[in-house]
């Protein structure tokens, strides 16, 4: 039997911001390779902080975080970029560079880690085909719809083969039809072996596309169930 590796492990993790706000209070969680997992909860409950800890945008105040088995606290600052190469991140507002085409936006992520140019061309083509935008690759973000822009941003997040994809409300700015396109895409990426963690407020999606659900309220995990439900009324 293959050993299941934890992509994320948190043990008694606290996050207290300098202004005294306790965003997370004793989080214990484990997310394994290949999982698809929703993070839900009211606004201001600590979801964002939880997500940011996973790609080391924030450091925990106390407790232990292992990313791919590596204790984040022991990683020196200058090595953080190499840790991040194994993690792709997608945001609600896409964060595309407006003066670059779809192709260039995706290629940018490979240039930034100094990938060989020949490899960049074929790989960018490949992921743009995967997200269904091969024919739109010369368009600027302003010429693309919201759904298309989010697909470019997903392409950018996975172009370096990260193995772990974090999506912070990826459907937050999209209409239901485009939201579902994005969800099918994430599901396909997950089916190819990439772990996906997605923070969301979308009740319909969570209740239809059943996956593991982690609910956070007041900085504490109040619910963690496979095939869970959204559980809130907003």
């Amino acid at each position: 039997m293959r050993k299941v590796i934890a992509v994320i492990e948190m043990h008694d993790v606290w996050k207290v911001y300098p202004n005294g706000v306790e965003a997370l209070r004793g989080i214990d969680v484990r997310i394994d390779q290949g999982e698809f997992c929703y993070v839900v909860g009211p606004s201001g409950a600590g979801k964002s902080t939880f997500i940011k800890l996973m790609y080391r945008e924030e450091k925990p105040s106390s407790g232990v975080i292992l990313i791919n088995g590596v204790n984040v606290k022991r990683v020196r600052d200058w090595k953080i970029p190499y840790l991040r190469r194994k993690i792709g991140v997608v945001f609600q507002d896409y964060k595309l560079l407006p003066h670059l085409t779809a192709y260039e936006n995706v290629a940018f992520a490979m240039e930034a880690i100094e990938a060989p140019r020949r490899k960049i061309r074929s790989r960018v083509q490949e992921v743009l085909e995967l997200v269904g935008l091969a024919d739109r690759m010369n368009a600027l973000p302003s010429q693309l719809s919201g759904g298309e822009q989010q697909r470019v941003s997903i392409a950018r997040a996975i172009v370096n083969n990260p193995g772990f994809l974090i999506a912070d409300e990826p459907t937050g700015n999209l209409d239901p039809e485009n939201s579902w396109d994005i969800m099918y895409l994430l599901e396909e990426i997950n089916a190819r072996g990439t772990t996906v963690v997605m923070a969301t407020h979308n009740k319909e999606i969570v209740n239809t596309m059943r996956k593991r659900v982690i609910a956070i309220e007041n900085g504490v995990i109040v619910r963690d169930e496979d095939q869970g439900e959204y559980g809130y009324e907003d």
Partner: protein
Amino acid sequence: MKIDTMFRHAREAFKSLKRNTWMTFAAVSAVAVTLLIFGFFLVFAFNINYLSKELDQQVAIRASIVPGASADDIEQLQKQIEQNPEVKSVTFIPKAQGLQQLKAQLGEDSKILEGLEGEENPLPDTLVIVPQNPQRIEELANKVKAHNLIEHEDHGDGVTDKLLDFSSLVRNVVLVFGLGLAVLAAFLISNTIKLTIFARRREIEIMRLVGASNWFIRWPFFIEGAFIGMLGAVFPVIIVLAFYKAALNVLTDGSQYSFIKMLPMMPLSLYVAALTTFLGVLIGIWGSVISIRRFLRV
């Protein structure tokens, strides 16, 4: 690092300079003004340094020997003084030679010395003693004076001291002033770079997210800063050297043997150009370091 990557950094830097034309212009001007002042001080400092070295060489004790001392005694005295480690050199000038030198200095007015040759020569035999360290000439002069074969001693009566004090004061003032200006210029550059970083903060954010190394992010800004510094050095160097050439022509008629001692154009121009450019690049890079640190928190 790969050549490809280096080209990319340079391309990014120039793109950003072009995109922010006005900010680039402002920063380059700021650097240029600073370096202009620095450049003038530099030629001044070089010349003061040169002058004080010349002065140092002229600083000497002229010790006159009591009349009637024998040649043997004088030779012995000279050897004795030479043994002092404070002494650089001792030259014996017999009174006949001294008269010749005086005549040469007086030039056309040397007529007044006519008829003083031979037995009538009123000048004493003289030892010219050059000290190792011009600053300690006073001490050495007192020692020399103590000798009973020395009738009288003259070391410029503190004029040289004052000149030496003045030149070292000027050197220090130049140093402090120059340093202050460099800091000022670095902050001006850092502000410019800050603006270009601000314009590119989304790019930096994404680079950080996808795992670009800190150096990969920094390089374009370093190149940008260095280039602003280099560009800012061009005009000051030209202006300073043009002024210096004019000053050289007016003050010394282009002759090296005039009353006012000034360094010739070469190799001074090379030093000034190299130092000014170097300083420009340095404050450029420094400026970009200051401004990028904050954006690179991990």
